C-alpha cells in the first residue's frame, strides 16, 4: 500500500509495473537466494571459521537470521543487512536531526535512532568561530544557537561509555538548517558516500542526504570562512552604528525568491516519489530527474518540453494525462512525428532528442542520455514559435473531438499546411506521400523517416 500513495493514471501505472518487472528480472538473476526472513537458515561453508555479525544468531549449531534482509559476507564475517529498519549510527556519518530538548551543556536531537542523540556544547563550533573554553554565559545563550524544533546537521562522533550517542558539529558546514524542507525516508535508501552535501547550482538549492534518512532540501547557503565572517560582522557593526534602520536590508535578504521555493518543492516531491517507490536516493539521480522537469514551460494550453540534457540521451518517454492535439519532435529539423488527436492517451517512445510540443499537460521522463544538439534545438525552437503563430493566426484550432484520418498523408499534409507551405509550388500532394518533395520514407514506404523543408527557419 506504500505505493498506493502516488496518484498515477492508468498508463503511468502500467508503465511503472512493467519497469518494476524488468528491474526484478534483472536483479533476480544476480542474487536470488541472498534474501532471508526471520529464523531462516544461513548456509555457511566452513562452519568452524565464521564470525556472526548483526542480524544472526546460533540455533542448534546452525546460523539463523534474526532479521528480514539480505545476507552479506565479508571474508569470515556473515551478517544480515536489514532493509526497513531504524538508523544504525556509524562514526563519521553525516546526519540531520531535530532538536527536541535543550539540556544543561547539551542539546538532545531526534535522529531516527533507537535513542536520542546528544550534541554537547563543547563539541561544536560557536558562531563566532573562535576556539575557546565554554563559559557559563555560553551555556545560558545556548538557545540563541539552537532552539527546540530546529533542524540541525551534524556528524556522528561516537558512543560514550554510558551508551549515549554523541554528535559533533566542528565545521562551518554543520549547524542550523533554515529555509527549506525536511523529508523523512527509510535510511536504507541513502547510500554512504564521500559527499553528502550537494549544491544543485542551476536551482540554487542545497541538498543534504543525511545517513539517518532525514533529507534536507533548502535554499543554498554559502559556507562562510570564519575569518571573512568576522570581517563582515565587524563591518556590519560599523554599518549598524552608521545607519539607523538596518532591518530593511536584512528582510530583503531573508526572503527566499519564488523560483527557489518552487525548486525546493520540486526536489522534495521528486524525493518523496522516489522513496515511496523504494528507489535509492542519490544526488545524480535527482539532478537528472529535475533536468527534465525543469524545462516544462506552460503557455496557453500548450506544454513545451525542451530536451537540453548536458550529456546525452536517446530515449524519451512521454505520457499525457489528457488528449494531445498534436506533437512535434524536431531533433535535427528532420524527424517529424505526428500524433493523432483522437488517441486519448498514448505513450510514444521516440528515439531522438529535441523539442516536443503538445497541447496537453503531462509528464516527460528521460531515460538514457545522448548528445545534445544545442544549435539544432534553437532552430527547432524557431519552428515551434512559427507553429504557434500559425495556430494563433487562426488556421483554426482542431478541436479535441475531431476525428481526423489517422494517416501519414493527412498528418504531413496538415503539418505543411500549418507551416504555411500549403501552396502548390513545389509540393504535389497527390499520389503516395513518399513521392512528395522533401519526404524520405523507409524502404517499405510505410513510415516517414525524414522531412526536409526549405524556408521554415
Amino acid at each position, binding site marked *: 500500500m506504500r505505493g498506493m500513495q502516488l496518484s498515477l493514471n492508468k498508463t503511468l501505472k502500467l508503465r511503472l509495473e512493467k519497469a518494476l518487472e524488468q528491474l526484478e528480472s534483472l536483479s533476480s538473476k544476480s542474487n536470488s537466494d541472498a534474501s532471508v*526472513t*526471520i*529464523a531462516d537458515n544461513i548456509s555457511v561453508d566452513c562452519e568452524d571459521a565464521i564470525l556472526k555479525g548483526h542480524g544472526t544468531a546460533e540455533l542448534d549449531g546452525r546460523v539463523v537470521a534474526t532479521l528480514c534482509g539480505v545476507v552479506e559476507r565479508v571474508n569470515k564475517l556473515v551478517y544480515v543487512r536489514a532493509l526497513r529498519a*531504524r538508523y544504525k549510527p556509524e562514526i563519521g556519518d553525516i546526519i540531520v536531526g531535530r532538536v527536541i530538548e535543550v539540556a544543561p551543556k547539551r542539546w538532545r536531537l531526534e535522529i531516527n535512532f533507537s*535513542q536520542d542523540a546528544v550534541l554537547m556544547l563543547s563539541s561544536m563550533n560557536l558562531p563566532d568561530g573562535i576556539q575557546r573554553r565554554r563559559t557559563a554565559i555560553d551555556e545560558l545563550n545556548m538557545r540563541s544557537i539552537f532552539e527546540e524544533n530546529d533542524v540541525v546537521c551534524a556528524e556522528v562522533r561516537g558512543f560514550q561509555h554510558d551508551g549515549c550517542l554523541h554528535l559533533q558539529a566542528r565545521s562551518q558546514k554543520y549547524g542550523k538548517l533554515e529555509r527549506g524542507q525536511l523529508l523523512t525516508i527509510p535510511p536504507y535508501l541513502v547510500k554512504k558516500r564521500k559527499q553528502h552535501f550537494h549544491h544543485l547550482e542551476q536551482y540554487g538549492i542545497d541538498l543534504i542526504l543525511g545517513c539517518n534518512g532525514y533529507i534536507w532540501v533548502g535554499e543554498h547557503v554559502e559556507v562562510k570562512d570564519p575569518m571573512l565572517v568576522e570581517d563582515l560582522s565587524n563591518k556590519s557593526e560599523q554599518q549598524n552604528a552608521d545607519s539607523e534602520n538596518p532591518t530593511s536590508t536584512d528582510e530583503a535578504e531573508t526572503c527566499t525568491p519564488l523560483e527557489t521555493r518552487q525548486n525546493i518543492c520540486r526536489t522534495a516531491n521528486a524525493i518523496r516519489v522516489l522513496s515511496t517507490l523504494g528507489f*535509492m536516493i542519490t544526488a545524480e539521480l535527482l539532478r537528472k530527474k529535475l533536468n527534465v522537469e525543469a524545462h516544462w514551460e506552460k503557455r496557453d494550453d500548450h506544454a513545451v518540453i525542451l530536451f537540453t540534457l548536458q550529456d546525452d540521451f536517446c530515449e524519451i518517454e512521454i505520457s499525457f494525462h489528457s488528449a494531445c492535439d498534436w506533437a512535434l519532435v524536431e531533433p535535427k529539423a528532420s524527424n517529424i512525428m505526428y500524433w493523432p488527436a483522437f488517441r486519448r492517451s498514448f505513450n510514444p517512445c521516440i528515439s531522438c532528442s529535441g523539442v516536443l510540443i503538445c497541447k496537453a499537460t503531462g509528464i516527460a521522463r528521460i531515460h538514457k542520455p545522448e548528445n545534445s544538439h544545442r544549435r539544432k534545438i534553437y532552430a527547432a525552437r524557431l519552428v515551434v514559435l512559427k507553429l504557434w503563430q500559425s495556430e494563433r493566426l487562426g488556421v483554426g484550432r482542431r478541436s479535441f473531438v475531431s476525428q481526423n484520418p489517422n494517416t501519414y498523408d493527412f498528418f504531413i499534409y496538415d503539418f505543411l499546411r500549418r507551416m504555411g507551405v500549403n501552396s502548390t509550388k513545389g509540393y504535389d500532394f497527390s499520389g503516395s506521400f513518399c513521392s512528395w518533395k522533401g519526404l524520405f520514407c523507409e524502404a517499405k514506404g510505410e513510415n516517414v523517416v525524414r522531412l526536409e523543408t526549405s524556408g521554415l527557419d
Partner: protein
Amino acid sequence: MEYVSPEGLRLDGRRPTEMRQFRAEVGVVAKADGSASFEMGNTKVIAAVYGPREVQNKGQQMNGQALVRCEYSMANFSTGDRMRKPKGDRRSTEISLVIRQTMEACILTHLMPRSQIDIFVQVLQADGGTRSACINAATLALADAGIPMRDLVTSCSAGYLNNIPLLDLNYVEDSAGGPDVTVGILPKLDKVTLLQMDAKLPIDIFENVMQLAIEGCKAVANYIREILLENTKKLEFRRGV
C-alpha cells in the same frame, strides 16, 4: 445446536480441520516504522509498530533491554452490534497483556537497550480469533520494522464442539460456549509461547485440540514467511545496487 453437519461440514462450509483463508499485507501504515494487516476469513486486524525509540516515561527505562508496550483496541464498527466501549476495558487490557508477553518472548530486547517498542493493534472486523490474528499481524509488523527476533510467533485457535475438534473458530462457533484453545508457537524453535483456554476439557481431548491448533500455527507461519520473503525481495531489487 448442530455445529458440524452429518456430512462433516461446519456452519460456514469448512471441514473441521480446515482454516479460513488468510491474507496478509506488509507496510499499510506510512508513518509507522513497521506495519501489517492480517485477515483470517472475516476477521481483519491492522498492526503498527513504532520504535525502537527513546523511552517516553523515563521511569520505565531499562538499562539492559528494550521496553515493549502493546495496545489492543477494537474499532466500534468491528462487531455486529455497534457498541461504544470504553478504552481500557478488562477484555482489551487482558489481550494487550497477552500480546505484549507473547511478542516480548521473541524480540531480542537485549540488543536495543534503553529504548521502547510500541505495538498498536486494532481490530477492524471481528469474527472470532481476534487475538490470534492480532499476534500474527504484530509479528509481521515487527519483522517489517526490522526488529531482531528469535523466531516468528504465530498463533491460531482451536475448539471442541459436538465432540469434534475444530480448527480456527469463527464468531458463531466461538460464542457457542465450548472450549476455545488459543495457541501461540515459535515454529522454528518448536516452542509454545501462548496457551489460553477458559473451559474444562479432558486431557486426552485437550491434547488433540492443541495439536490441531499447532498445525494451524505452522500453516500460518509458512504463509507469513512467504509474505516476508516476497516483501524483502521487493525492497531489495527496487533499491538496486
